[in-house]
């Protein structure tokens, strides 16, 4: 099976992705110096701790049920605080569980593009997280994928499984060290939500202006299962392109996506959310908010596909344009393939309304203060359905990023 996968990957190793700027993979280094294991997260350097905290990682793990930390190509920390929860590197999991090969590239074709191909051919760990049947993992699990070496390509393959009747919350923070000005993050994320199970996945990205990012994410949701995807990116990035897709294959399965994007500098963000409503009674909701500053370019995509009767989906996409040189391109797509599917969308892209600015200014705020207040409101995590623990963190990041300008 693995040889077949490798062969397919090799065939695709030059295949351009459909979306996003094409990258020359040779520009990035595949070799990384190994990092030593740590016995607690507080052993990280002060700088790294700060970077990790900025993407939702709790160093003290007080409100977490487990942690996974990967530095470059080395898994340096794993901790499980609850029974019925498994956290390990995917390499280790593949050795431990022969059945895992049945999940390997099950949701995403390995030959999608050169990034999936590289993730297979040059895989450097990634996490395997699993909630056993019926186990409700109360506090979130946290995972950090960290690039500390300049010019490195990190190629992780993550697999998350919520077995029947289980509940799992996962916060993944992806970031870089202070001295990284160039890098590539390829992250394969395959999620499996079994019957009556729920996964809430929140991903916070914090990159820099020289880093390229190509996550490839797919989710398979079975009967009565729920998958909630939250994505936050408030920091600059060279280019980021991703288009996660949820396959609602089980009856009455549900998925929702919440995306908050803040484009600064010359960031190129192409972020979409897709849901295929395959089984009867399946539901999807996609909400995205994008703010474009400076010379940033944002593509905000959304795609709902209704393939069965009694399926419903709604897509909401809003963009706030704050610079003459910035661009937001909202591309909402609805595709109904049978009668009996109900799909709708609302999309709006525009400047801040002057009436809103003037109103706040009449309360004594300067134009800058009023603008900042409106942006913060626009990206306010309270208005979308983020897990409560994350709301506070997202607000904190926002306070730092959106100041007067």
């Amino acid at each position, binding site marked *: 099976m693995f040889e077949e996968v490798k062969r397919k990957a090799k065939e695709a190793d030059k295949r351009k992705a459909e979306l996003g700027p094409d990258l020359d993979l040779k520009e990035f280094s595949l070799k990384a110096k190994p990092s030593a294991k740590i016995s607690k997260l507080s052993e990280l350097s002060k700088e790294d701790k700060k970077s990790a905290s900025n993407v939702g990682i709790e160093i003290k793990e007080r409100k977490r049920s487990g942690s996974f930390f990967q530095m470059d190509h080395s898994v340096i920390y794993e901790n499980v605080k609850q029974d019925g929860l498994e956290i390990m590197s995917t390499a280790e999991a593949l050795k431990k569980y022969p059945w895992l090969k049945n999940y390997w590239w099950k949701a995403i074709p390995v030959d999608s593009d050169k990034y999936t191909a590289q993730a297979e051919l040059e895989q450097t760990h990634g996490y395997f997280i699993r909630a056993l049947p019926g186990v409700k993992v109360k506090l979130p699990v946290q995972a950090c994928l960290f690039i500390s070496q300049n010019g490195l390509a990190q190629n992780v393959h993550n697999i998350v499984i919520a077995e029947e009747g289980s509940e799992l919350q996962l916060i993944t923070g992806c970031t870089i060290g202070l001295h990284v000005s160039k890098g590539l993050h390829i992250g394969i994320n395959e999620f499996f939500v079994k019957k009556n199970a729920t996964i809430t996945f929140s991903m916070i990205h914090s990159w820099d202006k020289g880093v390229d990012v190509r996550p490839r994410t797919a989710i398979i949701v079975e009967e009565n299962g729920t998958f909630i995807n939250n994505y936050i990116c408030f920091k600059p990035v060279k280019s980021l392109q991703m288009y996660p897709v949820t396959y609602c294959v089980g009856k009455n399965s549900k998925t929702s996506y919440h995306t908050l994007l803040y484009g600064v500098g010359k960031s190129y963000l192409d972020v979409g959310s897709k849901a295929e409503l395959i089984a009867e009674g399946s539901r999807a909701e996609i909400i995205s908010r994008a703010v474009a500053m400076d010379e940033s370019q944002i593509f905000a995509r959304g795609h709902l596909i209704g393939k069965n009767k009694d399926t419903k989906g709604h897509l909401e996409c809003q963009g706030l344009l704050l610079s003459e040189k910035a661009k937001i391109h909202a591309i909402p797509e609805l595709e109904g393939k049978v009668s009996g599917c109900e799909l709708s969308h609302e999309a709006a892209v525009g400047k801040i*309304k*002057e*009436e*809103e600015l*003037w*109103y*706040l*200014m*009449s*309360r*004594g*705020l*300067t*134009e800058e203060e009023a603008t900042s*207040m*409106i942006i*913060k*409101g*626009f*990206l*306010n995590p*309270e*208005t979308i359905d983020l897990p409560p623990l994350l709301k506070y963190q997202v607000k904190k990041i926002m306070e730092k990023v959106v100041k007067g300008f």
Partner: protein
Amino acid sequence: MLKIENISVSVGGKEIIRNLSLNVKRKERHVIFGPNASGKTTLAMTLMGIPSYKITSGKIFFEGKEITKLSIVDRARLGIFLAFQNPPQIRGVTVNSLMQILSNGGKEILQKVYLNEDIWSRELGVGFSGGEKKRLEIAQAFAMKPKLLILDEIDSGVDIESLRLISKEINKFLKKNKVSVIAITHYGYLLDYLNFDKAHVMMKGQIACSGEVKKIWKTISKEGYKRCEKCLKK
């Protein structure tokens, strides 16, 4: 306190106010009546300095200082407050976050205007009833303690009972603070709850007449604004 000297105001290139003058002394309370589209709201927005209301001629003085070209923020900081007729919806900006910026915007102020505490975490204007909108405007006025309070149709969209309660609080506030008031209204209800020193009637962007409050309102309610049109011609 406030001196408006022969101002003309255009909105989108169309002249709405023509050669209007008005004097408001410290602690004086003025009420301005007028039919729809007579320019009442334009006057309120112009006094606040809202940029889409362009003063094409004339001057405005506030406490002896010319403010004709002053920005909204500067006017707000000098002590001019406008309770908007239609405050905008601002998504994601909570009542809480706005009130906290205002100097005395604590939670207790909401009780004064009979607002439910759950409004604290709600988004500005989003899903507000007509009454809630007006009450929040008044709450902000109380928090900012202005020297000149402009009330633009504070009585529209509010039921009589609420109007009575809010007015009671406004009266208390006016008693405690040295505030001048310009209230704009269609109807006379407001007169039952708030006392005014002077009344004006606005017609076609001008002040058609000024005088004693009760007398003017009696004429309007008896003969309608048609009567005022005659005065304007004089």
